[in-house]
């Protein structure tokens, strides 16, 4: 039972991590330059 619970939790964590990594890679491939150049940031 313990092994089954651990496997299930591991699968859920792996799915979440995979999703996150894909999002990170997708976002990091975008041009980091944001116009206009002189803003502190954008809300």
């Amino acid at each position, binding site marked *: 039972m*313990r092994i089954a*619970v*651990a496997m299930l*939790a*591991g699968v859920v*964590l792996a799915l*979440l*991590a995979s*999703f*996150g*990594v894909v*999002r*990170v*890679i*997708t*976002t*990091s491939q975008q*041009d*980091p*330059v*944001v116009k*206009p*150049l*002189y*803003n*502190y*940031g*954008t*809300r």
Partner: protein
Amino acid sequence: MSRGSAAVAAGTGLVLGLLALGPALAPGFTLAYDMVFVPHPVFDRETFGLAGMLPRHVPSDAVVTALAQVAPADLVQKAILLAVFVIACVSASALVPSERRTARLAGGVVYAWNPFVAERLLLGQWALLLGYAALPWVARAAARGEPRRLVLALVPAAVGGFAAMAVSGLVVLVVGLHRPRPGRSVGVGRSGERRLPWLLAGLLVMSLPWLVPSLARFSGVPADPAGVAAFAARADTPFGTLGSLLLLGGGWNAETVPPGYGAAVTAVPWLCVVLFALAAYARGGRAAGLRGLGAAALAGLVLASLGAVVPGLLRWAIGLWPGFAVLRDGQQYVAPLAVVVAVGIGVAVDRVAGRRPELAALALLVPVALLPGLAWGAGGRLAAVRYPADWSRARAVVRAAPGDVLVLPWEAYRGYAWNGGRRVLDPLPRFLPGRVILNDAVRVGTGGRRDLRMAVEDPRARALDPLIRSGAPLTGALRARGVRYVAVDAPEEFATWAGRLPGAERVVTGPDLLLYRIPGAARSRAAPAAQWPTAIASFTTFAALVWSIRLLVGSLLAQSSPKEP
């Protein structure tokens, strides 16, 4: 907590820091928003808040400058950033009322790796994060009513400066106000009725380095109420602004949300984790001996939401007294809630570990799995770069013949190509020696509508503002006002500003920076500044630190027994 457990927590924090910083640990400097480190920094009036600007970087700049005298400045930056993760993991672990190492580590990991840390790190607010990292120590020292221990615990926040001390002050005030149960002591410190004044005295002494220059600032303390709309918390999850704050996010800047954060697939599980942690804290968190911490977290949540929920009230308050401007960027006050969440996670894992140790071990991975966007410098948003050679040449010129420097374009932030277009507060005031005049009025984009502009704060920049915006030639007026150099650090505007500097001599020409010398510029007269009060204030803080350091640093790591009140 045993020294072995503390070492494990420190190692875990170090691993988390390495994972989060990634490319920022390469040789060079990481420049992002408010995070500005420069090679070979030197002490000057600005370092101590004596140049007329608000002392936002006091004493953090002074500490960095001092450390950079014994180690390369880029290494100092990396050490400080890693220290944030190590201190956060160790201090939060020490607060979890459990004998199980897994439970303590779970609290430490979630405290070092969450949306608050991610958004503030990407915003470059390392000084605030230093105070955040040590907040669990501050909470425990305040709960025990020990001023000496509190002074020691406040050192990271004191290094950070006013924002870090404001958050720590909230915790000290609320926890200190909390009356212990009748007939029970408050640890080894003073009795409940007498402890608050001593705690506040400790807070005051550790705030002196930035408080005295603020009060002595010869042009007053300006505060633009327009900042309320610019810096109010905003929703970065599907749960609205308040929900986002509850999840420890909700920072004002949409650009500093870590990649992937806020999507329902991760936000919903993270919401479940936070609610689970809060429930666990409500049931078992009191065992940590931190009565009042929950109230501090609630008060912080209320302060964090003011700008978003009742902006008119905050604008009115700032108009009444500019000091209320510390509440404009309210999201920073959810930090005490992060402490509660960390303790709650630890309590929950402690209960699970008895029956399902494998699940407890997996809990250590949950924060990273739900927020993978922080990893590897948030997907490259943090990365080390080297300053261009032009900048070093300009510094050599100004150092050889000192004089005031005006920085153009007339904006505070830049997106240099050599920094990958990442926004950063213009580093020239720290890079060049002497007085450097920069337009410190920040501009915040609103995604379509007109940008929000804050007022200029530096008195000398305020005096030059109409001239520079007029479009008229600058050379003669700058000469009369004692400006000896003009540095232009945006290649796309080289031609524009060259046309407004007739007669100025170009002394540095490069692809990234032009430096002009204005012939015959008079030496400007420095405005009187409160040097002696500031020096006395810094000495007093240092003396308090020496007084407190008689406590062994290791005592901070001592476990707060579950039996303690």
